[in-house]
C-alpha cells in the first residue's frame, strides 16, 4: 500500500526505497537520519542545523567552491537540513545528470570535509539568519508558543539554535556532532524519478561498504505540555496571536479524529476559523490552524494576524472556536467535507517527486509503515460528531497555551 516502491537493505544496514517513475525528467534522492533539537542539550542548541549547513560545504576531494561549481555545471542541487527530530540530505537532478550528481551526493555523505573555515562561515551565516528571524513576527510568535508549550523538554528549542549557543560552536563540536548523528551513514535513503535502481544500488553499496551502521541512540522521553499565556511587545503594526492545545501524535488512536477536526477548524478557506474570524467578522487577513503532528509531543493551534485595537476580540474568537468544539457536536456535513478534503489533499500532496521521497522517507524513519496514510484515511470514514465531541473534551477541556506578539502599548486582554 502507499506509494509503490522497491525496498532493499544495503550490506551496512541502510534501507533503500526506490521508486522509478517516468512522469517527468527529474530525479530526487533523499537520505534521512535522526537529529535535531530533540537530541540536543540547551547549550548545544542548533548544532544539528549547523552540521547540515557545513556538510554540503566541501569534501576531502574538493573544496566548497569546487563542489558548488560542479553542481552548478550539472544544473543540480544538494541540500541538507534538520527538523526538530529528523534531518535529511537531498539531491535533485535530471535524467541526463543524475548519475554524476549521485557521485557528488555520495561523496558529501561519505567524506564531508567539515573544514574549519567553512564552519566559521556557516556560523556567521547562522548568526545573521538568527538576527533576521527576530524581525519576522510570525516566527517570533511561534518560538514563544513552543517555549511555553514544551517547557523544559528539548522540543522547546529552535532548530537554528540561539546566538549564544551558535557563537560557541567550532570545528571540533561539528565533527563530534557528525560522528554522533551519522554513525557513519544515514539509515534510510529514498530515490524517486527517472533513474535505474540497479545503478543506484551498485553505487550505494560501493560507497557505504559492509561495516554495519551503529544503531541510533534512544529517543528522549515524551514532552509534558505546558499551558498559560505569554505576551511580547514590539514597535510594529499588527498583533500575532496563537492559541492551542496538546493533540494526538501519529500512533495515537485519536489521530484520525484529530485530522478531521483540524480540517474542520482550519483546513482551507471554508474552515471554521476562516469563516468565523475573517469572513464574518473581518478580524484579520491571515487566519488558520497549525496541526504540528509528530511522533510524540504534538499540538494543534489556531492563529490570526490582527488589528491590535481588536486583538482582544480575535483572541476571544480563537478561544471560542475551541470551546465550541467542546460544547457542541459538529455537523455531519462538516465531517463529510473534511473527509473529502483530507483524501484530496493527501493525493495532491504527492504531486512532486520530492514530496513522494519525503513521504516514503518519513514513514520509514518514524516506523509508521508505508500504509500509514491509507490507514488513517480509512479510519476517518468512521469518525462521527460524537467521536469529535468526546475527542474535544479529552484534549481541549483544559487551560490553553497562548502566545501573543503585539505592538508596544497595545491594550491588555
Amino acid at each position, binding site marked *: 500500500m502507499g506509494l509503490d516502491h522497491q525496498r532493499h537493505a544495503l550490506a551496512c544496514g541502510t534501507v533503500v526505497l526506490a521508486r522509478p517513475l517516468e512522469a517527468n525528467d527529474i530525479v530526487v534522492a533523499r537520505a534521512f537520519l535522526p537529529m535535531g533539537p530533540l537530541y540536543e542539550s540547551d547549550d548545544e542548541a542548533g548544532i544539528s542545523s549547523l552540521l547540515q549547513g557545513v556538510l554540503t560545504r566541501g569534501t576531502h576531494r574538493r573544496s566548497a567552491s569546487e563542489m558548488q*561549481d560542479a553542481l552548478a555545471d550539472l544544473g543540480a542541487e544538494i541540500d541538507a537540513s534538520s527538523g526538530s527530530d529528523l534531518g535529511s540530505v537531498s539531491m535533485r537532478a535530471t535524467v541526463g545528470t543524475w548519475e554524476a550528481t549521485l557521485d557528488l551526493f555520495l561523496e558529501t555523505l561519505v567524506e564531508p570535509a567539515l573544514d574549519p573555515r567553512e564552519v566559521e562561515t556557516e556560523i556567521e551565516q547562522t548568526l545573521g539568519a538568527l*538576527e*533576521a528571524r*527576530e524581525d519576522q513576527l510570525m516566527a517570533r510568535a511561534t518560538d514563544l508558543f513552543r517555549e511555553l508549550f514544551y517547557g523544559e523538554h528539548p522540543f522547546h528549542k529552535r532548530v537554528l539554535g540561539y546566538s549564544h549557543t551558535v557563537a560557541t560552536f567550532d570545528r571540533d563540536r561539528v565533527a563530534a556532532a557528525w560522528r554522533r548523528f551519522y554513525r557513519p551513514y544515514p539509515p534510510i535513503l529514498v530515490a524517486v524519478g527517472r533513474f535505474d535502481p540497479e545503478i543506484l544500488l551498485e553505487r550505494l553499496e560501493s560507497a557505504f561498504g559492509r561495516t554495519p551502521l551503529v544503531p541510533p541512540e534512544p529517543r528522549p522521553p515524551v514532552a509534558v505540555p505546558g499551558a498559560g499565556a505569554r505576551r511580547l511587545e514590539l514597535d510594529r503594526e499588527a498583533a500575532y496571536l496563537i492559541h492551542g492545545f496538546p493533540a494526538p501524535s501519529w500512533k495515537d488512536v485519536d489521530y484520525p479524529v484529530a485530522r478531521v477536526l483540524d480540517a474542520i477548524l482550519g483546513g482551507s*478557506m*471554508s474552515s471554521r476559523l476562516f469563516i468565523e474570524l475573517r469572513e464574518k467578522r*473581518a478580524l484579520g487577513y491571515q487566519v488558520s490552524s497549525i496541526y504540528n503532528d509528530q511522533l510524540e509531543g504534538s499540538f494543534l493551534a489556531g492563529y490570526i494576524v490582527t488589528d491590535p485595537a481588536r486583538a482582544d476580540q480575535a483572541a476571544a474568537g480563537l478561544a471560542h472556536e475551541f470551546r465550541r468544539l467542546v460544547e457542541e457536536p459538529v455537523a455531519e456535513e462538516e465531517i463529510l*467535507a473534511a473527509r473529502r478534503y483530507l483524501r484530496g489533499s493527501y493525493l*495532491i500532496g504527492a504531486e512532486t517527486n520530492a514530496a513522494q521521497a519525503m513521504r516514503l522517507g518519513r514513514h520509514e524513519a518514524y516506523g509508521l509503515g508505508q500504509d500509514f496514510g491509507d490507514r488513517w484515511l480509512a479510519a476517518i470514514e468512521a469518525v462521527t460528531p460524537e467521536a469529535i465531541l468526546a475527542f474535544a473534551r479529552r484534549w481541549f477541556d483544559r487551560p490553553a497555551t497562548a502566545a501573543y506578539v503585539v505592538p508596544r502599548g497595545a491594550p491588555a486582554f
Partner: protein
Amino acid sequence: MSPKSGKLEWIGGTGEPSPAPFARARLSNGVRVLIRPNAAIPVVAVDCWIGVGAIHETDEHAGISHFLEHMFFKGTQRFPLGSMDRLVKEMGGYNNAATSMEYTHYYIVAPAEHVWKAADLLADHLADPALPADELERERVVVKEEIRRKDDSPHGRLYTALAHAVYGSSAYAREVLGTPESLDRIDPAVMRDWWRSNYTADRIVVAIAGDVDPEEALAGAQSRFGALSPGAPPLAAPAPPAVAPGRIDVGMDVGQGYLAWGFAMPGRDDLEAMCELEVAATILGDGETSRLHRRLIDELRLVTDVGAWTYGLERAGLLGVSAVCGPDRREAVEEEIAAALAAAVRHGVSPEEVRRAQTILAADFAYDNETNAALTGTLGEFETLFGAAEVYRDVLRGIAAVTPARVNEALDRWLGPDGAVRAWVGPNGA
C-alpha cells in the same frame, strides 16, 4: 447550444522540455484555452487569467484589481456566498488567487474527477459575481489587515521603498494592495464597473493541466467559458517614467538592515535584452557560485543573504541586487556591491560563467514546471503577458543563445556607474 470552438493547435513535441507539449484553442467569444495533458497522478489544475492588474488602475482607486480578487469569492446567483470555498473543500482540492501589476488569476487544484465542477465554479464567478455591498465593507477591513501585515515585514517595506525610489509616483510604483485611503474610495458601483470593463473574454486565458483528455477538455471549456461577454482587447500599459538615481531610507523596529538596488532595464518588449540581463543577474547573484555570494558571504562574511534578480513588466524592467546585513556593515556592503558591479562592467564575464548561468536557468525552469499548478502558471502567465504561451520557448532559446560579448554589452549599457536607485530598511535612528 453554444457556438463551436476553434480547433486545438498543438505546440511542442514530447522530447521537448515541459510544459510542452500543450494545445491551444480560441473559443468563439475570444477566450483562449491552453491544455496540458499530464497523467502522472489523477490531479488537475484549472487556472483563469485576466490581463488586468495594478498598473492599469487609477491612483484614485489604486488596489481595485486586488480588492476585486477578494470580492470574487463572495458568491454568484448560482453559487451563493461561501459555496466556492465549501465546494472546493468537498472536492478535496484547494483554490487561491493572486494579483500582480499586470494580471489577476484564480485557480483550483483538485482530484481529476472534479475538473468540470472546478471549471463551473470559476466560469460562473467570472461571469456573474454578486459583489454584495455588505461583504465589500467587511472585505475592505480584511485588505487593510493585509496591508498592515505587509508593512510589518522588512522585505515588504523594502520593495515598496524601492518601487517609489525608482518609479516615483507613477503607475509603475503603485501598490498592488492599494492604500487605506484608495480602498475607502471604492464603492459597490465602482467595483462592479471595474469587473464589467475588465473581465471580458478577450482578456481571459484559461489554462488546464492534468489528467484530462484534450478534446474533452476543449469541449468542456467551450461550454463553460464560451458564454463570457466579449469586450475590449488586452489593456496597454502606460509609458514608464524616466528613472533617475536616488535613494530612500526607511527606519523600523528591526535588528538587521535590508538593502535593495535597482537598475532600470528594458521590459518584455525587448526579449533579447531581457535574456542577456537574466544571464547577467544569474552570474552576479543567483546561488552559491555567483560573484556576489562568493565575495560577500564566502570571502568577507559581510552579509547573511545576497542576490541579484530581474523584474520585467511590458515596457520597463529592473535588474536588482538585494542583501541582508548587520546595520553597522551597511557602508562596507554597499562598497563591495558597487565594486563587484563595476568589475563586471569593466572586465566583463567569462564564457564559463555564461555557460554555467545557462545551465542553471534551464534546470531551474525544469524544476519549476513539475506540478499541474506550475504548468498552468507558466502557460497562463506567458499567454496573458506575451499574447502567446509558446513564447516561453523563445525565452529558453534566447537564454541559450546569449554570448559573453552580448552580456558584456548589456552590462555596459544598463549598469551605468551611478545608475543604481537604492533603498534601505534598517533600525530606527541608525
